[in-house]
């Protein structure tokens, strides 16, 4: 990110951060600020840093205002709203030189004035709330809403936009609109009267958010499941995947329930654990319903045995792994891309799995639909690897599109008529040479019956301990995996003939794209390949072969994508260099820029 003089007006290009205590209603206040900026036509990036806790621990919300429409964190904070006394000192420390800090000055905080390169604005929020509102709970909530008014004055957010948003939120409780607006106006007036408003960092209306939504990846994935025709969802609650099933449930309640009878064209089963959740998905898909389970790393560990069964017995399944920080319980509310290898080879024995890597909520929607088609076409588990950053943060996304001519690809599933027309049904043959057998659903006809088992079986579906019969099936599964490489979404290359390149995936895309622009502006030529699926297609192989030096950017300690590339392509290991980020917070572009520059400088020096 280019250096700027902080005194220069920075219209629509700065970062706000709110430091709060969780469970205090701050989430709605912060979302209100972000939505208001979005409604004023200015692109925003929102990141929520929250604890694995219900009430009382520190939580932060960061809003980057970015007229250029970048999608990653900026790596700096210009305006801090410090509402949590416990974290004042670190919040103050985090401010960029020349920045501003807003705090509740009901009680004096001399320590907050310790930096002379930062301006501090005290607003007696608690006192103003006590003077204007009744009841302890209301006073706490209103304190957070009140700073929305102060921020609106400082950065010039139109109060009418805020009022409209509140009116929508509280459409059924108009009284709440008035009380919230009252608090906001008090905070607004106080700022206007006491500070020079607006600051050099401020909002000016643009027209850059039309045709966009603010949506999180889990909601988008749930919408994808709805549109893909999924009817069975099974899960065990786990952060950060829970909101995916919550969203699916509310979409289904609205769009899949018979208005007359209340009967449902869906079933959501809260299982006793992840082992059962994946079992339910496998049982449902084996029986012809589209089914999925959302989970995170610990859930994947528990599901492994069943995943091996689905792989070997060739039963479709769709698994959303919204990755969080591992190992073990790790940090449940922080983000990482640390399940890549666990998913690629999940389960004992020779197993390899299809994976999709969405980079945004938009792709969560598209890839959710794709995952069901691939699972049924390939008769195998398909993983959608998103992460907490994509899954739980609101991203500005172009409107999703839908083609009403779309029909699900149910794959090689014989209809009752087709079964009637064949002499004998055999489950694991490969008549088409693509490694994909034909399947039948229970209930069709005695002729269609077969036995599904995870024990050794021949191509006819019979139990076997015969070496040749066993190996024949295992080899066909390899053939099927090669077919999968042609069906997964292709990697997207941004190639301009440079010798060096970045290879990355998933939520790294946003910071990498911004880093590329920075690097190119500074004269460093780098190409880029974003991998979107596994097994890797020939385009990945070719890209690696045609670049002399490849920076593999990923969010885990052990360079899992790099490992996968060395295992699954012919690339020379020596030319893959890792740029790693794994502290649990979403990566900013500076990590990538610094990583590339450092590596290239070393070479120049050497």
């Amino acid at each position: 990110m280019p250096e700027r003089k902080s005194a220069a007006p920075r219209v629509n290009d700065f970062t706000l951060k709110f430091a709060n205590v969780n469970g205090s209603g701050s989430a709605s206040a912060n979302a209100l600020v972000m939505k208001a900026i979005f409604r004023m036509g200015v692109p925003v990036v929102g990141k929520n840093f929250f604890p694995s806790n219900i009430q009382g621990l520190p939580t932060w919300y960061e809003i980057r205002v970015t007229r250029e429409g970048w999608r990653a964190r900026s790596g700096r904070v210009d305006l801090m709203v410090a509402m949590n006394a416990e974290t004042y000192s670190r919040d103050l420390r985090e401010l960029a030189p020349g920045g501003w800090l807003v705090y509740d000055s009901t009680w004096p905080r001399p320590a907050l004035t310790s930096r002379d390169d930062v301006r501090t604005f005290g607003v007696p929020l608690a006192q103003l709330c006590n003077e204007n509102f009744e009841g302890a709970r209301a006073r706490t909530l209103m304190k957070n809403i009140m700073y929305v008014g102060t921020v609106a004055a400082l950065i010039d957010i139109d109060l009418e936009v805020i009022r409209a948003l509140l009116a929508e939120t509280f459409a059924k409780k108009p009284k709440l609109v008035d009380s919230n607006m009252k608090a906001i106006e008090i905070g607004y007036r106080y700022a206007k009267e006491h500070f020079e408003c607006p600051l050099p960092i401020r909002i000016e209306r643009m027209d850059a958010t039309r045709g966009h939504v603010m949506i999180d990846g889990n909601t988008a994935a749930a919408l994808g499941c709805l549109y893909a025709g999924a009817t069975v969802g099974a899960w065990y609650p786990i952060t950060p995947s829970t909101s995916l099933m919550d969203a699916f449930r509310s979409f289904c309640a609205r769009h899949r329930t018979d208005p007359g009878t209340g009967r449902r064209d869906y079933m959501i089963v809260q299982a006793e654990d992840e082992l059962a959740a994946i079992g339910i998905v496998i049982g449902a898909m084996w029986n012809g319903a589209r089914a999925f389970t959302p989970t995170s790393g610990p859930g994947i560990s528990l599901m492994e045995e069943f995943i091996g069964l689905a792989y070997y017995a060739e039963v479709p399944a769709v698994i959303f792994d919204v990755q969080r920080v591992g190992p073990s319980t790790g940090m449940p509310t922080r983000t990482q891309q640390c399940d890549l290898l666990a998913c690629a080879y999940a389960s004992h024995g020779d197993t390899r799995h299809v994976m999709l890597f969405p980079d945004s909520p938009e792709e969560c929607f598209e890839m959710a639909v794709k995952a069901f088609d691939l699972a049924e076409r390939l008769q195998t588990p398909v993983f959608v690897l998103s992460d907490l950053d994509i899954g739980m943060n609101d991203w500005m996304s172009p409107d999703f599109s839908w083609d009403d001519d779309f029909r699900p690809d149910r794959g090689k599933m014989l209809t009752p008529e087709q079964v009637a027309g064949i002499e004998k049904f055999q489950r694991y043959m490969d008549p088409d040479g693509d490694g994909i057998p034909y399947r039948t659903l229970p209930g069709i006809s005695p002729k269609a019956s077969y036995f599904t088992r995870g024990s050794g079986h021949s191509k006819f579906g019979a139990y076997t301990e015969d070496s040749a019969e066993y190996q024949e099936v295992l080899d066909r599964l390899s053939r099927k995996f090669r077919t999968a490489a042609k069906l997964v979404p292709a990697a997207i290359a941004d190639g301009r003939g440079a010798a060096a390149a970045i290879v990355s995936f998933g939520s790294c895309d946003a910071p990498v794209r911004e880093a590329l622009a920075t690097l190119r502006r500074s004269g460093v030529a780098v190409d880029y390949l974003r991998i979107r699926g596994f097994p890797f297609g020939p385009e990945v192989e070719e890209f690696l072969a045609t670049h002399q030096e490849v920076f593999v950017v990923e969010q885990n300690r052990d360079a899992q994508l790099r490992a996968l590339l060395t295992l699954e392509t012919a690339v020379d290991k020596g030319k893959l260099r890792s740029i790693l980020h794994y502290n649990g917070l979403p990566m900013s572009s500076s990590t990538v820029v610094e990583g590339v520059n450092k590596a290239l400088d070393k070479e120049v020096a050497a």
Partner: protein
Amino acid sequence: MSFMAKPKVANPGLPRNELGLNRRDYEGSMSTLCAGCGHDSVTAAIVQACFELALPPQSVVKLSGIGCSSKTTAYFVAGAHGFNAVHGRMPSIATGASAANRHLRYVGVSGDGDSLSIGLGQLAHAIRRNLDMVYILENNGVYGLTKGQFSASADVGSKSKKGEANEQQPVDPVLFALSLGASFVARSFSGDKEQLVPLIQAGLAHQGFAIIDVLSPCVTFNDHEGSTKSYAYVREHSETPVSADYIAPKQEIRVQYAPGETVSVPMHDGSNVVLRKLDPGYDPTDRAHAAAYVQERGMRNEYVTGLIYVDTSRRDFHGQHGTSEQALNAVPYERLCPGAAKLDKILGSFR
């Protein structure tokens, strides 16, 4: 050992059911269990039950876990789809399968290792869901495939083949099921086909989770002196307070029962289960009473068999979820997908 085809020659004189099928049409492939295994008798009872009910073979779904008992789903109703899941986790496969298509008959076969050790959790939750299935637990107190370790159903003091006595408390599947509120709980003995066949039929007719604990001796590892799961021991120590007769829909109740000793329980499919009280004081619709009775007899080293408890009033899995009558796997896509115009509206709430 590879797949063994069973010769399919049927005596033309064999009786046929109303679908025109004979008993052999409900068999599966050749059993590979030990000669004399109790499980083969259970298989035969399932064949008999399905034949007599004239179930279309494809309307049955066979599910199992891992172990000797779980192999047996290959040995009956060849015309049904079968799913041999992973160890102890058949109930979750059954849950998913049932979710996808509520109109098939789900027959699960499991063992005491599969159900009471590794799979105790999944069994518990299948019971809680009141999943519409028959769950046959072939109970022999021993791990056969791994050569004779005690299972969780082994009684205290029961001796292994090597003479070692079990000291851990057993899990009694009947008491376990009763404590979790199972809606149909029965126990039988693989050597008592007359009792077992109608119980399986009643279980198939029951809309909800029907568990049948079948004492099914292991001739190789647990049929010796000192074992409480041997043929001789079970035969001597069984006591049946209530026997059940299955009366198909429209079938006339022909047997004459003494007044006051029978209760007719109407099932959801129009059939009836007629309970004959052999112990006049027993009430199979009183859960607390049933549990106390089983426990009390158990302390006297007696196995209570027959239909121990039944409650047809509880909503089953689909009833609890309010799912459509049409199987979820058959709902047309057009009804499932809201379409492009609705997508615009949905997105509107995210601006």
